[in-house]
C-alpha cells in the first residue's frame, strides 16, 4: 500500500474515532443543569409519554438535550464564532459586531405591538376609573427605552442592510394605542452618549450612566430637580462583566465591561424583597459580582415586588414602578424623590398591580418602564393589570 493511501485510511478512522470519543464523552461526563455562560437552564432528558412520542415533541426534546450537554459545548460555540469572524462576518446570529468593541443585537420586527398597546390601554383605563371613583390624582407615565441598535446606530457596521422596522416608530405607536403620556429618553441618551458609555458593550442593558440619562428624562417630566451625578457616590464593582449578548456570540477575545454603581449618600433606605421576605439597606447585591450574570446585582435580580422606603426622601410621593430589568439600575437615582417605591416585576407578580394601586391610596405616581429589546416578547407586560 502506498503511503498516501495509508494516510487516507488513517484519516477515515481518526474521524470515526472522533465521533466515538465525543459520543462516549457525552455518555460518561457529568451533566450540568445550568449554563453560566448562556445564563439559562439546560434541557432535561424528556419524560416518555405517548402524547409526546406521537407529536414528535419527545424526539425534539432529546435533540435539545443532546445538544445542550454536548462535550465541550462552550468551546465549540467559540470555535464557530471565530470561524465566522475570520470569514469577515460582521453579524452573527442577529448580533452585529459593531465598532469600538460593541456587540449590538438587531431589533427584531415586533409582532405584538397592537396587542401590547391594547393591554396598556386597558391598564390606563383602569387607572382612569380609579381616579374618577376615588377622587385621586395619579401621574401615569410610560418610558420605553430604545436599545443600542437605535441609539448607537453610528457604531453599527458599515453598509448593514437597513431594518424594515424602527424602534422609535414602535414606541410612538404604543404611545398612540395606549393613550399613556410618554417620556422620551432618546435625546437625553444621545446627549449622554457623547460624553460616556450608555450601553454595555457585551450586554443588552444600559449602563448606570445610560440609566442616569433616563433618570434625567424622568425628572424633567415629573418636575424634579435631578441630583447631579457628582453628588452621588460612585463605585466600580467589576471590570469583567460579559453579559447576555456576549453569550450569544462567544467572542472570548473581547474585554469585559465595567459596572459602576451609584449610591446617594443622603438616602436612608429600607429595601424589602417581599417575595423572599428579606430586608436590606442596599439596592445592590454584590454577591453577583463573582457570578456570570453580574447585571443581577442591581436590585438582586428578579423579585415580583420590592418595597423601597427612603426615610430622607425629598417628598412624600409614592411611586409604583412597572418594569423590566432596565429599571433595576435606574431605581438608585429615583429613591431621592419618592418616600416609597413599589417595584413590580410583572413577569412574576400575579395579583395585578392595578389592584395594588387601588388598595394603596398613598400612591401618587405610576411609571411603566420597559426596554425595546425584550418588550415585544416579554410576557410580563400581559399581566400588567
Amino acid at each position: 500500500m502506498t503511503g498516501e493511501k495509508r494516510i487516507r485510511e488513517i484519516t477515515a478512522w481518526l474521524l470515526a474515532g472522533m465521533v466515538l470519543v465525543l459520543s462516549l464523552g457525552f455518555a460518561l461526563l457529568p451533566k450540568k443543569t445550568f449554563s453560566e455562560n448562556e445564563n439559562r437552564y439546560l434541557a432535561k432528558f424528556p419524560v416518555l409519554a405517548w402524547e409526546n412520542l406521537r407529536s414528535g415533541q419527545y424526539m425534539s426534546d432529546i435533540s435539545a438535550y443532546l445538544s445542550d450537554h454536548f462535550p465541550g459545548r462552550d468551546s465549540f460555540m467559540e470555535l464557530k464564532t471565530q470561524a465566522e469572524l475570520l470569514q469577515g462576518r460582521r453579524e452573527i446570529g442577529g448580533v452585529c459586531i459593531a465598532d469600538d468593541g460593541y456587540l449590538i443585537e438587531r431589533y427584531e420586527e415586533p409582532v405584538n405591538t397592537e396587542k401590547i398597546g391594547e393591554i396598556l390601554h386597558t391598564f390606563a383605563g383602569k387607572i382612569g376609573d380609579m381616579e374618577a371613583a376615588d377622587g385621586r390624582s395619579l401621574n401615569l407615565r410610560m418610558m420605553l427605552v430604545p436599545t443600542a441598535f437605535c441609539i448607537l446606530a453610528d457604531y453599527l457596521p458599515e453598509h448593514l442592510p437597513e431594518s424594515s422596522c424602527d424602534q422609535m416608530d414602535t414606541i410612538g405607536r404604543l404611545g398612540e394605542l395606549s393613550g399613556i403620556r410618554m417620556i422620551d429618553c432618546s435625546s437625553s441618551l444621545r446627549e449622554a452618549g457623547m460624553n460616556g458609555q450608555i450601553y454595555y458593550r457585551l450586554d443588552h442593558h444600559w449602563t448606570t450612566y445610560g440609566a442616569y440619562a433616563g433618570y434625567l428624562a424622568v425628572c424633567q417630566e415629573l418636575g424634579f430637580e435631578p441630583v447631579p451625578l457628582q453628588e452621588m457616590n460612585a463605585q466600580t464593582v467589576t471590570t469583567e462583566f460579559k453579559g447576555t449578548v456576549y453569550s450569544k456570540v462567544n467572542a472570548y477575545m473581547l474585554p469585559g465591561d465595567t459596572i459602576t454603581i451609584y449610591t446617594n449618600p443622603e438616602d436612608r433606605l429600607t429595601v424589602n424583597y417581599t417575595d423572599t421576605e428579606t430586608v436590606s439597606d442596599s439596592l445592590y447585591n454584590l454577591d453577583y459580582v463573582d457570578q456570570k450574570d453580574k447585571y443581577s446585582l442591581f436590585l438582586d435580580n428578579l423579585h415580583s415586588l420590592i418595597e423601597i422606603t427612603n426615610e430622607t426622601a425629598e417628598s412624600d410621593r409614592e411611586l409604583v414602578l412597572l418594569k423590566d430589568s432596565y429599571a433595576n439600575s435606574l431605581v438608585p437615582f429615583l429613591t431621592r424623590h419618592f418616600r416609597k417605591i413599589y417595584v413590580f416585576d410583572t413577569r412574576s407578580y400575579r395579583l395585578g398591580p392595578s389592584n395594588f394601586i387601588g388598595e394603596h391610596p398613598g400612591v401618587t405616581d405610576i411609571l411603566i418602564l420597559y426596554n425595546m429589546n425584550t418588550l415585544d416578547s416579554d410576557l410580563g407586560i400581559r399581566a400588567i393589570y
Partner: protein
Amino acid sequence: MVFSSIPFLFFFLPLCLLLYYAVPFSMKNGILLIFSLVFYAWGEPVYIVLMLFTAAVDYTNGRLMDKFGTSKPRRRLFLIASVTVDLAVLAFFKYADFLTGTLNRLLGASIPALGLRLPVGISFFTFQSMSYIIDLYRGQVPVETNYLTYLTYVSMFPQLVAGPIVRFSAVNRELHSRRIRKDEAENGILRFMQGLFKKVLIANQAGVLWESVRALEMARTSVATAWLGAAAFTLQLYFDFSAYSDMAIGMGWMLGFHFPENFRYPLAAVSVTDFWRRWHISLSSWFRDYVYIPLGGNRAGTAKHLRNMLVVWFLTGLWHGAAWNFVLWGLYYGVLLILEKYVWGKWLEKLPKGLRHLYTLVIVVVGFVIFTFDDGTALRNYLLLMAGAGGNRLWGGECLWYLKNYGVLLVCAAALAFPIYPRIREELKKLPSGGRIAAACVGAAGYIALFLLATAYLVSDTYNPFLYFRF
C-alpha cells in the same frame, strides 16, 4: 432525523454501525431494518404506517404477479393495481389540497382543505417502491419473496428521505449478499464527511444569506443584491441536496451497498440539457425510464415528442411539491429543453465555453427563483427586480455588505461547485512520493479541522433546515 444533526451523527449512526458490524450476515438486514424504522419514526411517528403500507402493497402485488401472472395481461392487472394504490396514496397525502384548492379557484367551488401534513420522504419511497413493481412486470428483476427484505429496501435510512432514488434493480443483489470491504467503508466515511461539510458549512451558510436577502424590503433592494440572493439560494440547494446524496452514498459504502451517483457538478453544465444530465440524476432517469420512454420518447414524431417532453416535465415539476410554482418550474425546463433540441442547440454549441456556462447558470438561477417562491405575486416581483424592471438601483451598499460578510463563503462554494477538487487530486497523483504524502497529510488535517468546525456549527444550534419536506 436529519443526517446533519447531533442525534444522528453522534448517536444513531455509530450505534447502528457498531451493531451492524457485530452481527453475522444473516442478521444485518434485520439491524438495518430496525434502525431504518426508528430513523423514520423519529420524524414521522404516525405516518410510518403509510410507508409500511406502500411497501406491503407492492410486495404483495409482486408475489401475486409472480404466482398468478401467467400471461402478460394478467401480469399487467397486478401492475395496475399496485401502481394505482401507490399513486393514490401519494395523491391523497401530497396533492389533495392542491387539487381541491385549484378546483376551488377555477370553478369557484368551496371544497374544504384536508390540511394533512405531508409525510417526509413520501415521494422518494413511493417512487422507489414503484420501480420494483414496474421492473418486475418487465421481467427485469426477480420477485422478492421476503417482506422484511423488501421493507429493508424501501425504508433503508441512508436514502429514505432525500434520495438518491435507488431502484430495486440497483440493490437487489446486494440485499441478499454483499461484501463489506474495509477500504470501501473507509472511503464511505470520507464521502459521508464531505457531504456533512457541504451541508453544514456551505449549504446552511448560503441559506442564511438567502434568507437575509429575502427578508429585505424589495423596494429598497438593489438588482445586484437580488441576483446575489438568488445565486445564494442556488448554491444552498445544490450543496444541500448533493450533500444528502454524498452522505447517503458514503453510508451505503459503509454498509456494503452501492447507490447510484445523483449529482455530477450540475452548476458546471454548458447547456440546460447538460444540466439535467447532472442534476438529481436518479429522478430524471426514473422519469425517463418509467414515463418518457413508455410514452414513445422521441421515436414517434415531433408532435408526440413535444407532448412527451411536456408531460414528463410537468410531472417532474409536480413531483417537487404540490404547488403551481413547481409545475411552472418543471414546464420552464420542458420548454427550454425543447428549444435547445429544436431551435438553438446547434447554435449554442458554437459559442465559447464561458458564454455557455453563463447561459446555463442564468437559466438555472432564474429557475430556482421560480422554485422557491410559491406566492405568485412575490415571484413576479422578484423576477422583475432581477430583470431590473422594477426601477430599483442596480447596486447598493447592502450588496457590498453581503459580499464582505459572505465573500469567502461564496468563493469557496463556487470553487467546489466546479470540478476543481477532482482535478487537483489528479494533479497531486503526478507528484513524487514525498509530495503525495505531504498532500495527503494536508488533506487529513483539513478533514479533521472541518469536522471540528462542522460539529461546532451543529452544537451552536444554528440554521439547519431540511429542505425536502415538500418532496
